[in-house]
Each structure stands twice: as C-alpha cells, then as structure tokens.
C-alpha cells in the first residue's frame, strides 16, 4: 500500500507571546519553536501503521521553506521512505486552495493507494487543504478520521462527529483521508532512525518543476486574500487574582464559598 502524506512545519504558539509583523502579512517568527503540525503527526503515524501491516512505501510532502526539512527528516527518521519539499518564492501568500493546487500537481502523476493529511493545521486552522486536494485529484475522501481498517481495496473508517458520536463509512481506494488527533499513539524516532534520515536526500521541487502557471500559485492563485491581521480584542475579561500561590488560593476559596459553589 503506497501512501502519500502531506505535512506542515508550523510554529508552536500554545504558550508563546505572539506579535504581528509590521507589514501585517504574518506573525514574527523569531524565537518560536517549529515542529510538525499536530494532526499531521498522527497522519504520518497512521501511514506507518498501515505500512507495517500491508507493506508499501510512504512519501511525505510539504509546501514550505528550507527549514521545513526538519519536519521532513523527522518523518523519514520514523520510517517514511522519501520526502519532497515544494519550495518557491512564488508560492508565498498561497491560501488553502492554492496550496492544495501545488500539492495536487506534485502528487497527480505518482502511484499511490492512499493520501493522508492532518485534518487541520495548528497555524491557520483552515481545515481546507485536504478535502480540496481530494477534489483536485478526483479522489473520494473522508474528513476527521479517527480509525481505519483496510479490506479488499476498500477502507472502513470512523469519522468524528460532535458530542462523542462517530460515523462509520466505507470508502473505495484510492482515497484521501484527513486524520484527526488521537487516532493512534505517534511514535518517537529512534536514534538509529534519525541517523539514517540524515543521509537521505530530500527532493526539492519549485514552480518550474510543476506543470503550473505562475498565476495558479501564491496570491494570484488564491481565492481569498489577507486584508489584515490583528490581535483580537479580549471581551468579558476574567478578574485576575494576584499574589503568591497561597494568597490567590485563599482568595479564590473565599470567593467560591461566597458564591456558594464549594
């Protein structure tokens, strides 16, 4: 079973202070730690599990800058067979649609049984590239997948709905699945794997290597454009308790007792 996995190298901003660049086109990336987007990490693990069960090769792809090699190498270290980085200045400013277009061009003439993506990227959170890519490649798809099972050229997958409910569906291969977090337990790369991955070559493709016009990528090829970025106004702010841990604890308990909740 040959699998293509699309991943994204993103900054971890969960506990970081964020500042917007002066040109309002992005955030300041200095000092931020980058890693594979969380759902993509589960997607690569799902590919590794399927490869262990059915054999085949895993190709991992990303659209991003040279620094994204870090994420690609980690995927190779875990057991992906080859990595492709799609890098070109002219890709900059691509929205989810244009990004899917770039990926589609790189994937369309390769042999695969399955394409996996994360269901949503940690940075822009659009949850758009995977399902868009499926349509461009003419593949059946399922989004928010939380379990997979393969049988006779078909897959039975669970999709996560709201409120703890799952939808079970059958999908014909080749197909594209967007993977939800929690589907498996992502492994860590072994030291041996990391050493081996250092020696592997990462294929780098630019716009000229793809059968795409310049107008199909970047801002020109995008269907939405950024007007501005801003730090959202905080409404209904919490009353922040100040002091040592003992002081704030004492104050909080008093408040909660007065409100009759403890």
């Amino acid at each position: 079973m040959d699998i293509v996995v699309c991943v994204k190298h993103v900054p971890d901003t969960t506990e970081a202070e964020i500042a917007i660049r002066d040109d309002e086109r992005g955030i300041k990336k200095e000092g931020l730690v980058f890693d594979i987007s969380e759902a993509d990490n589960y997607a690569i693990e799902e590919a590794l599990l399927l490869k262990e069960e059915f054999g085949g090769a895993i190709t991992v792809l990303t659209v991003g800058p040279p620094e994204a090699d870090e994420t690609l190498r980690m995927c190779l270290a875990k057991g992906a067979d080859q990595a492709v980085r799609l890098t070109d200045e002219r890709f900059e400013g691509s929205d989810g649609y244009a990004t899917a277009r770039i990926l589609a061009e790189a994937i369309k003439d390769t042999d695969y049984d399955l394409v996996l993506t994360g269901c949503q990227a940690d940075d822009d959170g659009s949850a758009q590239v995977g399902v868009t890519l499926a349509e461009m490649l003419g593949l059946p798809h399922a989004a928010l997948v939380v379990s997979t099972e393969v049988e006779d050229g078909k897959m039975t997958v669970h999709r996560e709905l709201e409120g703890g409910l799952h939808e079970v569906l059958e999908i014909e291969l080749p197909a594209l699945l967007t993977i939800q977090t929690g589907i498996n337990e992502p492994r860590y790369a072994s030291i041996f794997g990391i050493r081996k991955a250092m020696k592997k070559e990462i294929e780098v493709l630019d716009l000229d290597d793809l059968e795409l016009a310049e107008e199909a990528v970047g801002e020109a090829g995008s269907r939405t454009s950024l007007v501005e970025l801003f730090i959202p106004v905080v409404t209904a702010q919490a009353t922040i308790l100040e002091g040592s841990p003992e002081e704030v604890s004492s104050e909080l308990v008093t408040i909660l007792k007065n409100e009759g909740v403890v």
Partner: protein
Amino acid sequence: MGEIFVLAEHRQGELRDVTFEMLGKGQELAAAMDAPLAAVLLGHDVGDFATELTKHANQVLVVEDARLEHFNSAVYQQVLAHLIAERKPSLVLMGQSAYGMDLAPSLATQLDSPLATDCVGLEVEDGHLFAVREMYGGKVSAKLAFRQADLYMATLRQAAFPFEEGEPLGGEVVAVDSPLTEEIAYRKFLEYVEAAVGEVDITQADVVVAVGRGIKEEDNLPLVEKLAKAMGGVLAGSRPVVDAGWLPPDRQVGQSGKTVKPKLYLAVGISGASQHVAGMKASSTIVAINKDPDAPIFKVADYGIVDDLFKVVPALTAQLAG
C-alpha cells in the same frame, strides 16, 4: 443579488444548533445584500424540519430522497452542485462542523467558488464580502477578502454566532426533485457509533476540574485529581489529554466530547481553544489557572490565576483541606 443558501444540518432526528446560528447570520446578510434567504434541507421524511425552518428563512428548499437520510458528503455534493447550478445563489453558508468540514472544500473546488472556512465574522462592506477568522489557536485574527466571483462560500464556526428567536419569517416550502440517479459506490454511510459511557458522568457533576496540555505528563495527573477530590468534583480533560490516552474519551470536554454546565468549572493548564470552550462556556462560574496571560481561556473565565499550575494547584488543594 442571488439568494443566500444556508445548508440545514440535521442528525438522528434533530436539527443541529448551527443551522439556526447560520440562519440568524443569514438574515443579517440577506438584509445587507438585499437578497432572499433560503434554507436548504436535504433528507428523508423531513417535513417537520421544513416547517420549523420556514420561521427563519424566506424559502425552504427541500430535497427528499432515501439516499439523503444520513449525511454523506459525496451525495450531498452532487445534490448541492445541481441545486446551485439551477438557482444560482450568490452565497452558500455551511457549518464548520463534521459535516461542513467534509463537504465545503470539495464543493467549493468543484464549483470554482472562493471559500473562507471557520469564520467567526462575515460582513458586507461597500458591497464586498469580508470574513474574519482566527489563527494560532485564537491568538490572532485575520480579515479576509474573497476573489470576485458569482458564488461565494463560507463555513461558520459553531456556537460563534448568536441566535435569537425573532418574528417568524413565514417562508414557503419548495419541494425540489432529487437529482440523484445512480447509487454512489465509492463512499457509503454504514452506521453511527455512540461513545461508550464510563462510570463517571461528567455532565451530571456540580464541580468539574478539567486539565489540559499544561499538565505536561501523565504522572502529573494525580496532582489535579487530588484537587478535584478536595473540591468535591470530578476530573475531566481537554482534547490533548484524551488524545494522549491519559483520560478516557468520556471525560473529554468540548465540541467533539461532552458539553458540561456545572456550577463551577476549573480549567487547569487549558489554553481555551474554541472547540473546548464550546463544551464548557455555559458553566455558572469559570475559573482558569494558566501561566500564559494571553491564553484565550481568560476570555471566558470569571476568575483567573496567571501562574504555574504546579505551584497553584497544591496550594489550592491545601487551602481546601485546611
């Protein structure tokens, strides 16, 4: 202006809340764009839903077909593409839900329509449509413009748009013949599976102490469990803690887990992603402990402590015991 379509969401015999939230927003946009508002209802034996929706739209377009009983994005896409080609709406709204996320990007691509996903704002300014959406877990907002087109699409974040029951619009129900011909073999709905219910039902507790990514390791969980016990509450968690397998799925609070409304909700090391907040914001009193002062959880909390949870949690537990 062509009409505004709102795709009604329903599951297991109920219209989903996001349907009404979209119709509320749709009415506002319909006024701004001087366009009629149509609810689009695909299903089987959904006459009651259609009647309900006439209160909130000028027209309810109903496609009845046994093959539409359960959501299937492949089938929905065929029917909607047909309906859109026929009626030529100028805007289609869908939910940023398990349904909309599975359908909107492929439908928009098929129809060559610009799409903005997970919108928390959608406005018309000088005749142009703009979307506002969040990035970086809600720490940054982005305003987007759409490329000029005949048809625009947007998915709206669930529980982000208020819905108030207003004067009924008294719309008409319009039955549309199902355009479906052959069975779609490449994707088939099989069944629903309910999450297993464990020994503790977190939706029934008066006090819920929920732990998030800030707890760092599974070995640190007893720290928060002790606090939950001291407060007479139950231990719950946000998605990352459940994904990591440190708590069972029935303890997960949020859109894809449980919705809780306790008297007291104490969020420990939870940043407050919108999917989490959707499952706890109706709690009477919300307290958040997080060392990041910019964490979105402080937007919904009544009381906040900006400090290291590993210092505050033991102090608070001791205070309650003493």
